C-alpha cells in the first residue's frame, strides 16, 4: 500500500474497506464474456446435433455435462469483479456498489423478459415437436435462461466497467 504523505491525516473514525483490485483489463473481461456465452452455444449446438443420431457414448455425455459444470463453477466461485455477487458490499466502494446494484436491476428486467418469452416457446417446443426433440429444445432453452440468470448481472458490470488505468504518478504541486 502506498504511503500517504499528506500533512492532513484523516482523523475521522470510519471503517476502512479492503477494495478489491482484481478487476482485470476490459479486453480480458469482454473476451471472457464472449468465450463463456460462445461456449454455451457450442454446448447447446453439440447436444442438439448429437440428439439426431444414436445415443452418444456415455463418456461424451459426461464430457459435455462436466465441461458445462466447470464453466458454471468458475463463474460462481471466481472472486473478481466479473463475479460481483461473490463480492460483499464491504469489499467494494460506494460507486462500485451502485454500479453492481444497477446491473442487478437491469439484469432482472432482461431475465424477466427472457423468461416471459422462454416459457411459452418451451411449451410450444414440447407440444409441437415429435420424437422428444421438443423436450430437448425446451431443456436447452431452460439451461440458457438459467445461465442468463446466474451470469447476467456480473456480465453487465464487467462489460461496462472501464479499463483500470495504471495509477498516475503524484502530480506536481502548482
Amino acid at each position, binding site marked *: 500500500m502506498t504511503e500517504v504523505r499528506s500533512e*492532513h491525516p484523516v482523523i475521522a473514525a470510519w471503517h476502512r474497506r479492503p477494495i478489491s483490485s482484481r478487476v482485470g483489463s476490459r479486453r480480458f473481461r469482454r473476451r471472457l464474456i464472449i468465450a463463456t456465452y460462445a461456449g454455451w452455444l457450442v454446448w447447446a449446438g453439440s447436444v442438439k446435433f448429437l440428439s439426431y443420431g444414436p445415443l452418444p457414448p456415455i463418456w461424451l455425455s459426461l464430457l459435455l455435462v462436466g465441461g458445462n459444470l466447470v464453466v458454471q463453477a468458475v463463474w460462481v466461485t471466481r472472486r473478481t469483479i466479473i463475479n460481483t455477487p461473490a463480492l460483499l458490499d464491504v469489499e*467494494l466502494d*460506494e460507486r462500485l456498489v451502485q454500479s453492481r446494484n444497477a446491473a442487478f436491476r437491469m439484469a432482472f428486467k432482461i431475465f424477466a423478459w427472457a423468461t416471459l418469452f422462454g416459457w411459452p416457446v418451451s411449451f410450444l417446443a414440447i407440444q409441437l415437436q415429435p420424437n422428444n426433440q421438443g423436450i430437448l429444445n425446451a431443456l436447452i432453452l431452460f439451461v440458457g435462461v438459467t445461465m442468463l440468470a446466474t451470469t447476467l448481472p456480473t456480465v453487465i458490470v464487467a462489460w461496462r466497467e472501464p479499463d483500470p488505468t495504471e495509477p498516475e504518478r*503524484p502530480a506536481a504541486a502548482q
Partner: protein
Amino acid sequence: MAPSIQNRIGVLRAERGLSRQQLADAVGINYQTVGYLERGDYNPSLELAFRIAEYFGLPLEAVFSRQPFVPMSSQLYGKEESA
C-alpha cells in the same frame, strides 16, 4: 440524471502532490472512483464528501459546491474572472 456537484478534488490533489492512488487509499475508495469524482461523473455520498474534505483539512463547502467554483486565483487576488 442527478445534477453534478462541483468539486475541487483535482486542484487540491495537485496542490499536495498526491496521486489518485494515494488519495484513494487515504479515504478508502477505488482509485478509479477518484477519477470519476474529479470529472464530475460521480456524485459522492455525504459520508465520502466529509471524508475527503476532512482529509484535505478544509470545510465541506471549500471542496464541494452545487455552483461552479470561482477560480482560486481570483479569490486570492481579488480579481473577478468570468468562467
